[in-house]
Each structure stands twice: as C-alpha cells, then as structure tokens.
C-alpha cells in the first residue's frame, strides 16, 4: 500500500494559505512577537500569534460560534487541506474520511477560564458552556461536524511529536479499504498560563528570537495555529516511511532516542532534514544524532520563523518538507548560532526528505517523504 500527501493546509503566525506562508518563509520572514500577560502588573511572555484577520472567511457553522481559537485554527487548516486535496483525489466523500486530531495542551484558554472561575468563586460558578470545550476532543468534534464526518475520529494527545504519531495512526487506519483518505490536523492555542508553565519548566525564552542549535540552549517561544495534511492513496508527495516513534525518559537520553529513528528512516536519497529544533535541549539532542547518522544533510527548522506550536508543529514540519520537495526551494534557517551546526549545509533540490520530531516531553518520531 502506498500512501501520499494529497492536500495540505496551515494557519500560522505568518498567516494562512499554503503558498502565502511558504513565500514568506522563503523570503526569510519571521513572525512578530506579541506579549501576553494575565493582566496589568503581571509577567509578560513573548508569543507568536495568528493574525486576527486570517480566519474571517470560515463558514458560519453553529459549532464555531463559541469555539475557542484552537478549534477555529483547526477548521481553517482542515478545510484548506481538503480543498487542495481535491485536485489530487477529486471530490471527497465525508463518510469515507477518518479524522485524526493531534493536540498537546488542548483548549487552554477555555480550560483556564473555566477552572479560574471555579477557584475564584466556587463550584457553583462553573460554566456548563465552557466545560465541554475543555475536553481534549472538542476541536475534533467541531471539525467532524463541519465536514460531516460520521466514521472514525480520533484525538491523539502527546508532546511536539504527536502530529507525527497521528500520521502513523493514519497509516494504520488506511489499511481499511473503506477509507479513501485521512485528514490529520494538529492544532494549538497559546495563552499566558501556558507560557508561564513553559517558563517554570525552563523551556521558554524571555524574548525572541529562537536560536536553533545554540549551546547552551536559551529556550523557545510558543506559538499557535494549525497544520493539516490529507493522507490518501494518490497525491504529489509520497510518504515512504513513518517511524512509529519511541520515548526517552530523561532529557539527556533524547539523542540516544533520536539516533535509531533517523537511522531507520534515512536512505541514500535523503539529503534534506526538517528538524524540530526550537531553541531548547531538543536542538542539542538532534545535533548529536544528526552528526552520527546523516552529517551531510541540509537541515532546516521552521520554528525560528513560526515558533514552537507543539501540537501543530510536526504537521507544519511535514508541510515544509512537502513544499521543499515540490518547489525545489528551501527557506533560510534563521538565527543560526554557529557556522558548524547542522543547519549550515547548502541546500540542493532533492527528491527525498526526512522529517524529525522530538518533543519536549519524552516522545520522538519521524518520517520520510519523496516525489
């Protein structure tokens, strides 16, 4: 069974639309940081947010009236991916699609609001409108309702590698001949609480930029948005192999977890690696593994430009890899700290690319694409 990427869509801090965001990445642009805070006098955190005017044309579906940003990002990316997929696989029957949703932190904005009211005013103030939106599969439910999907819908939770695990799950589901395709969507939203948590976790940088492969790492900047991929049996980009993923228990074990993933995926044609370098310990683990497995590869990370969007990030990486293969172009790796780091190799158009996703909470996965 051969699987292909039939369609792609993304909503990012650099805007929405496959070609629009890609062109901005090629030009070396990066998102402008905006500060979020709990309120006046409280700590401020830099974030990369989706421009507010990017979602104006979403369908006026009742499910989106009160939905949180994460659901709106997911709907936009999912609809865009299906639209681009139609040119590869024709009209899509919603009863023959499976939806797989990748999420990490979930609907943090409504969750914080819901729980904040409970803490502040007691259980009697709990909102029955907000609570359902705090459930991890709320965004998937909204998207399924918008698309009319009545079959399989799964929400996978995990760290930054969860999007890759969702693609693996889609590969497993596609063994069912009753499915024409899978829509895989990764999404994330950002608020002050999430930033505070990542700062206390010592993963957040106090100000941009994200500096990939810097030693010692200075931290990342969180971002929001969604990425969506339609996985079908035909399409312009082939999915050669998806590694099922592995885990590491301590940060200093991350490199050892990445090495077998990269070794398993790499082949003679793979000259490009879309890395998950985000300015944290992940970068150094990836650097060690890259030196050991594919030292000559051209390495790119979109996170200095788009931020660390956790649940959405692996899907963004896959889209970058697909666009690189199809266009024969590669954006510049921004804010590269040292000349001898993995990102310094010259890009040459290639027919095969690897995508590596090392999350910040113990999970690693990857895949290989080709044209």
């Amino acid at each position: 069974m051969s699987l292909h990427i039939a369609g792609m869509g993304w909503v990012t801090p650099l805007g929405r639309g496959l070609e629009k965001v890609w062109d901005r990445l090629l030009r070396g642009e990066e998102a402008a940081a905006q500060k979020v805070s709990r309120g006046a006098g409280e700590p401020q955190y830099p974030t990369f947010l989706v421009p507010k005017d990017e979602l104006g044309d979403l369908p006026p579906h009742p499910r989106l009236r009160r939905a949180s940003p994460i659901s709106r990002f997911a709907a936009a990316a999912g609809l865009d991916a299906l639209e681009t997929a139609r040119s590869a696989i024709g009209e899509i029957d919603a009863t023959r699609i499976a939806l797989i949703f990748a999420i990490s932190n979930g609907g943090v904005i409504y969750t914080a609001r819901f729980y904040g009211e409970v803490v502040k005013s007691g259980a009697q103030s709990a909102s029955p409108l907000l609570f359902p939106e705090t459930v991890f599969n709320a965004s998937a439910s909204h998207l399924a309702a918008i698309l009319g999907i009545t079959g399989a819908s799964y929400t996978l939770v995990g760290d930054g590698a969860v999007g890759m695990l969702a693609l693996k799950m889609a590969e497993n589901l596609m063994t069912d001949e009753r499915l024409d395709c899978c829509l895989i969507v990764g999404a994330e939203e950002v608020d002050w609480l999430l930033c505070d948590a990542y700062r206390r976790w010592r993963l957040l940088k106090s100000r941009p930029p994200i500096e990939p492969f810097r030693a010692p790492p200075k931290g990342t900047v969180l971002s929001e948005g969604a990425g969506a991929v339609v996985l079908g049996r035909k399409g312009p980009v082939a999915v050669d192999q998806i590694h099922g993923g592995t885990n590491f228990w301590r940060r200093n074990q991350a490199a050892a977890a990445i090495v077998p993933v990269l070794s398993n995926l790499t082949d003679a044609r793979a000259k490009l690696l879309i890395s998950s370098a985000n300015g944290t310990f992940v970068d150094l683990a990836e650097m060690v593994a890259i030196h050991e497995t594919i030292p000559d590869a051209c390495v790119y990370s979109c996170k200095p430009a788009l931020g660390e969007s956790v649940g959405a990030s692996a899907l963004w990486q896959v889209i970058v890899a697909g666009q690189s293969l199809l266009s024969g172009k590669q954006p510049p790796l921004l804010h590269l700290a040292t000349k001898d780091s993995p990102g310094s190799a010259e890009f040459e158009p290639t027919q095969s690319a690897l995508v590596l996703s090392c999350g910040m909470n113990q999970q690693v996965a990857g895949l290989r694409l080709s044209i």
Partner: protein
Amino acid sequence: MMIRALDEALSQDGQFRPEMAVIGTTSGGMSFGENYYRALDQHHDLRHTPRWIANYPPQKPALDALEAFGVSVPCHVIANACASGTNALGHAFDCIRSGKYQRVLTGGYDTLCQLVFVGFDSLQASTPEKCRPFDRDRTGMVLAEGAAIFALENLESAQARGANILAEVIGYGISTDNHHLTQPNPSGIGPRQAMMDALQSAGISGTQVDYINAHGTATVFNDAAEGKAIAELFDRVPVSSTKAMMGHSLGAAGAIEAIISLLAIQHQFLPANINFRAGDEGVNLNIVANEPRSAAIDIVLSNSFGFGGTNASILLQRFHQRPVCDGPIAA
C-alpha cells in the same frame, strides 16, 4: 493506577513483548495542572510547580507506567472523551488485524480531579443519589477513576508460544455523531452505527450476541439514545451497565468494562445492573436487573460513548481452541 494495572497484566504473561501501546484517557494528569493553577492563583509555594507541570500532559501517566517496566515502544494516547478506553482497545485490535503488529498493550486510565467533577456537575450529568442506569427515574452518573490494561496479541502468535488466552477480540466499531458536543442524537444513530460496524467487523449478526455491557451512564440522554439503539438492533439480548456498581471512570471505563465483559465470558454470568426499578416507557430492553445471573455466554458487546459524539463498540468472544484462521485477536 496505570502502574498497578500494567503490573497485573504483564505479570500474567512474562513473555509478552509489545511492539506498541495504545492507551485511552480523558483528563490525564489534570490534577497536577490544578495544583499548579491554584498555587499560582493563590500565590502559594511555587517550588513544586516544575514537577506539577511536567506531570500535567495527558500522555505522561502512560509513559511513566511504560518506563516503570522498561517498555520502550511507540505510545499512542487517545483522548476521545469517555469512549477513549474502548477506542484504544479497538484501534489496537485494528492494528493487529491489519497484520502490521503482533502484540499491542492497550487499555485506559483516568483519575478524578476537581475540574472534571465540577464540570460534569455543571452539566447536571452527575447525581448525588444512586446511579440507576436505564431506570426511568435515573438522575445521572457517579464519577470514578481507575485503569485497565490488556495484552493483545495475534492469535497465531499467542498460540505458537503457548500463551494463556483469556478471550478473543472479534470486532470493533467506531462512529461520530455530529448532533451536539455533549448530547447524543436522540435517535440513537451514533451508538447504532458503532454497534452495527462492530458486528460487521466481526462478521456476525446481532442474534449471536449473548450479553451487552452498555455504556449506561444513567444520564437521561445517554441511556435513552443507547437504549433505543440496542432495542432496535438486538432482540432482547441481556443488557446491563456496570457503572451502577463501579461508577464512570471516563477514559478508563471502556477498558475496565471490557475486562468485566471478559470475566462474564470466563465465569459464564451476566453482571447486574443494580439500582434498577423500571425502564423507560416503550423501550424494550432486557435489563439484568439488580442481581447477576448465570448464563451461557459466548459473545459480549461492550459500548462506550463520549462527548464530541464519539461512539465505540467492541466484541469479545470466548476462546475456543482451534486451528488459526484470519481475524481473531487474543487478549
């Protein structure tokens, strides 16, 4: 809880070497997130916050449990609300049946936390009284917590190594009901489709099912929709919801109830639906009311439904020693 459940599962078969884990949960480590939020909000001691934050991600309990037993395999954590446990078991079944995997650890877990407790209460879905699934005077669910784990293996592989096979998984169905984020379509179309898919997946008819372990939360809406779908699809098959005895453990419920279904097969009894007095008007269900009953049970259907309109049904069958053919998966 995950560690205890995994320990119990693995200690029954020391030779079981999983290639993947598929685990369901609803709220994961939410209680750690609550600790962090309260400490932050009330300016309490924040020294423990890194630990709370690191334990908040919903996949963390599953990964911690795998680490405790030195199991380093890909881990897919499904958060399909209250259907998560059955979805995990079902997806694990699909993965093995596709031939891509031989052995998968699967199950579910959830712990009680304030956010979930208050949330269900705000929806008036939980009851301060007795939990009475399928009773006409039902007033809601009682929340619970727990974990359950299955060691699932391709039948040929399990037989070849002489594993003690407890039961077979023979079918799985999943559907999505787009009626409402928290309420099922009153027609029962979502549960009906999931159950029909499970029967089709197993290649059996409804008349071959001996017992249904219902989702049966005792909420007005769930039991009405599920009861309608069961009554339409099955002819007086005995039905009970064991949530009346054990409560609703959300992401763990499907896995726990699959184990109850397996025990029903092993011990040839129908688990009771306690606290039952009289069913809904016009709904023809054969409720196993208040007392367990002995019965010949070969095949059991177990249902789990959740917020977001997720519906999952799984079919378990008594293991009959025989030459291997395609399809069944040993548990």
